[in-house]
Every structure is written in C-alpha cells, then in structure tokens.
C-alpha cells in the first residue's frame, strides 16, 4: 500500500489539485479522512498539517505535503523533495495597533510572546539578542494581546486580513514559507520511481 498524506486547512485545495495533475484523484467527502484513489494500492489521507510530517516520518504515509513552517518548527526525519510553490505565507511579529512597541528595538526585556511556533520564535529572538518569554498556544493567537495574555505575537500570515480585523499590525517579517513535498526516507528508496514522478509535474 502506498499512502499520500495531505494537510487539512489552507493547503488542502491546492494539494488536491497537485495530486490530480499527478494523475491521482479521489472522490471527496466531508467527513472521510482516508480515501481510496483511482490508482491501484494508493490511498490519500487527510490529517492536520503537523501530523502530515509525523505520518511520513514514521512511514505510515510514504509521501506528504506540508508547509515549510511545520518542517522548520520541528525537525522530522523525512526528506524534503520539492517546493510546490503554493500556500505562500510569512511568519511575522505583530502587536496591537496602539502598542508602545513599534519595532524590534522597542521590545522590552522578557516581553511575553504568544505563538504556535515556539522554536521558530525562540530562534528568531535569540538571534536578535532579545530576551523573551514564550507562551505556546494552539490557535487563535490574535486574541492573546487583546486579552493581555501576551504583548506580542509570532504567527503565520497569508493575506494579513485576520491581523487587521483583530486590530493588529505587523512590525517584522521573520521568514517566508510555502508548501513542500516530503517523503519518508525508506519510501524514497523503496518507491523511488513513483516518488521521482512527482518531481517533474
């Protein structure tokens, strides 16, 4: 059995389109998570973005599609094959519009930073020499500074609309991200021809 893991959420539609271009299609249904495809012995599973990397690392899925933010936040033992050039977004530092913090140099010591990406945030502020306190959250980061849980946030931004609607403004860009094609290292060796086919689409 050959399995492809693709992420729920913002990368889902583009990922489905990418698979279709590769000749793999399946009948979509809202609640289903594991799909048989038109290709023999090939399944597609739909899981949370972070879990894509886990499924592929452990070999439960042979290849997967995941944002580079996930791969940079945590080191997985997978091979990264290709930039799929969709799902572009940026990792930013943002504060409430009326905050005293206007740029990196006005961040006070041990400032509270709410984020879903503690490792990336710690690395960035570490490199800047700014001591901070990380508050790890799992979602809705934007409300952390509005409720005084934190003073700033580090989050992934697509269009910037969510930031704006929550009265936040970006003060710094940390990194740029897009979707990556990854594979389990053993699958990369065992199903080499099949995986190489995905590289030229």
């Amino acid at each position, binding site marked *: 059995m050959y399995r492809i893991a693709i992420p729920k959420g913002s990368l889902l539609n583009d990922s489905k389109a990418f698979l279709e271009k590769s000749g793999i299609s399946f009948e979509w249904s809202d609640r289903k998570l594991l799909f048989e495809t038109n290709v023999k012995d090939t399944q597609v599973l739909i899981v949370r973005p972070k879990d894509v990397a886990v499924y*592929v690392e452990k070999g439960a899925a042979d290849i997967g599609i995941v944002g580079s933010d996930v791969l940079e936040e945590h080191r997985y033992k997978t091979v990264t*094959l290709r930039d799929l050039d969709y799902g572009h977004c940026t990792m930013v530092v943002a504060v409430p519009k009326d905050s005293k913090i206007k740029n990196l140099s006005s961040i006070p010591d041990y400032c509270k930073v709410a984020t879903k990406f503690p490792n990336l945030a710690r690395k960035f502020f570490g490199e800047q020499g700014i001591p901070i306190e990380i508050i790890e959250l799992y979602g809705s980061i934007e409300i952390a500074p509005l409720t005084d849980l934190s003073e700033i946030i580090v989050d992934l931004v697509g269009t910037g609309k969510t930031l704006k609607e929550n009265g936040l403004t970006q003060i710094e860009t940390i990194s740029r991200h897009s979707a*990556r094609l990854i594979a389990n290292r*053993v699958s*990369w060796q065992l199903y080499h021809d099949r995986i190489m086919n995905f590289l030229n689409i």
Partner: protein
Amino acid sequence: MNLPEGIRDLLPVDLIRQEKLRRLVLNTFNSWGYQTVLPPSLESLKTLEKGRPKLVKEAFKVVDVDGQLLALRPDLTMPIARLAATRLSSLERPLRLCYAAVVFRQNKNADSHREIYQAGIELIGSSSKDKPYSLERTNKANLECLSILLETLDQLQIADYKIVLTHTDLWRYAGEIFHRVEKHLEMDLSAEIDAVLQKGDFLEYQKVINKIEERCKRSFTCPSELKTLFDSSKNESPLNYLKKACFQLTGKPDEVLAYLDSDSDLYNELSTIIALEEIFGPEKFFIDFTLRPDRKFYTGLYFEVIVPSRGQSIGAGGRYNNLISCFGGSEPAIGFSLHIEALLKHSQNPIIKQPFDKKKCVNISCEDTSKQGLIERIKESRDLRKNVEVVVLD
C-alpha cells in the same frame, strides 16, 4: 512503579521467539566461520571516546567506586575492534567474529528504545600481508559480508527487503569541489552540506549549490579554476555534477553506475556487489547518494537494510578501516548489525512466527502430596522428559 521510557520487560512469549531467532541468526554466522564473542557490558569511557566519539553523547555513563567514568556499551563494533587490536592481535587474519547482544543508548527522542538487541558480524584484517587494502581484498570482504547479510535475511524470510548502498567515494569528487571553493571563497561548505543532507533537505542542498554559483560569479578575483565550476558550456562541469548528484546518483544500481567512470575503483567495487543479485535474486540493491553515514567512522562502503511499511532501517553496516588503528595496528574491517526486534517483527519464517506449542507440553497431576507420592511423580516426569519437550508438575 513506572519503568523509565524506552526500556521493557521481556516476557516468556517474547523471549521464546527471540531465542529462536538468535539461534537461527548465530547459526548462519557460525556456518560462515564466524565465532561468537561477548564483550563486557561496561567499557571505560575513554576507550569509547577513542573509538567512537560520536556515540559518547548517546551512551549511558556510570561512575565506579574509584570515580572512574564508564559507559554501558552503545555498540558492539567498538569493543570487538578493541579486542581484535589487543588480546586477539596475534591470531591469524582475517578474524571472523559475531555477536547477538544488547546495546544501550539514550536518545533525545523519548520514543526510541534505550535497550537494543543486536546481532551482527565483524570481518577484521586480511590474509594478504602485503596489500590488505587492495581493491581485490576489499571486494572479497564486501562480498563475504553482504552474502552473509543476504543469506541471514533470506533464512528469516524477511519479505521484500532491500539493501541501500552508498560509498564515501561517491562523495570524494564532491568533497574535492567543496574543498576548492572553500579555500577560495572562505565558505564552510562541507559542514553546511552535511547539515542539509542529514536533514534530508534536497531543496536546501540545491540552494547551497546555487549559493556557490552566485559567489563564484560575483567574485571579481575568481580564479580560473573556480570558473570551471559554473561553466555551463560544458555539460559535465563540477557544479553540474553537484546539482544533479542528489537525484542522479540515487536510484537503481544500473542507472547510477551509468554515471560513473567504468574504469574507476568505485565502479568496480559497486558493480561487484551488485553481481550478488545473480545468487540472491534481482532488485536487492539500491544506491542512495543522499545517505550520510558518520564519515569519521565509515571509510568506504556503507549500507542499510530496509523493508516496506517500516519507516526506518532494520540494520546497517559498512567498512571502517580506521577503527582498529585507534587501539593498535592498522587493519581493514567491515561488518554489519541487525536489530533483533525488527527482524522478529518482519520475519515470515514459520519456526520463528510460531509461538510455544502447547501440544508438546504434558502435565502430571500431583494429588498425592505425601513424600512417597511426590517422589514417584518426579521419577515419572523425569522418564517422560526423555520423549516430551516439557513436563509440568501440576
């Protein structure tokens, strides 16, 4: 009473199968003339630092009453190499040794086992005193080692396994290019390339190569020998080699060999190994340029054993010509080790798959618990054991 993570009790049901597998594997090794050894569980930390510094971090450290630092053995190759260079140094070469024992490692990943059962062989030294490192000797040792590996996997009936090969010489050309660039541009490339490939990030790898290209182009004082690195008029410029290496030097052996110079030692060595498919069947091998073994330890061939639906290798091995000289004279050496627990999981051999057979067990009921009654039952059970495997006093 919690067990620490990564260790477990082996219950009878596990142990019966493990014991059968150990016996089968050791029998195969023994039948090739390999003799079983068992080095001590503890080793001086200094010895480990000398032989396999990379494993020091992973080793469990113990302090003895004199304050001496010891390590629970994280590997068996190192102690066997020590043995070969010291107590066994005067024995005829090559030395053929094997083992089935446990090693101890601590890993940051909490999910990984800390007590690992391994079985393997070490082929140390050469009967040729003049040219122990010659290509002919290397080929002979490679074939012997890999034949034992393939035979063991076949004996265990491991389905659809593959041996993934790589060789430090595949990297030598790349290394030379990096060295030249590093010298001229003051870039630390080898470390960077090592890091991206160990991460398995082929995208980053391409980026590093592009960076070299950019730096070469921008550098006004670019020496003429560097210009050839990005000269696109020649199809086979060194930089092109690096760009394509990731994908072209990874694939089926015949595809990869087609890119190598057929007069080179590397071609000779790899194609000799692939010839084993004549005996063990087709599609047993795969070559992977991106596999990065510990380069301070492995000095030539390196290989891993993989099976479908298991995301990691079930065994690995290779040539380690520099290890023995850490403890004594210099000698070539090659070996492999297999994960016993992984073999147990993937073995289709009915002898190993089958649990304990209850039919082979006879119970004798001891209702009469008087002295004479019990003595009679024990006598009876001793007689029965001559023909029946297991007799239990109920």
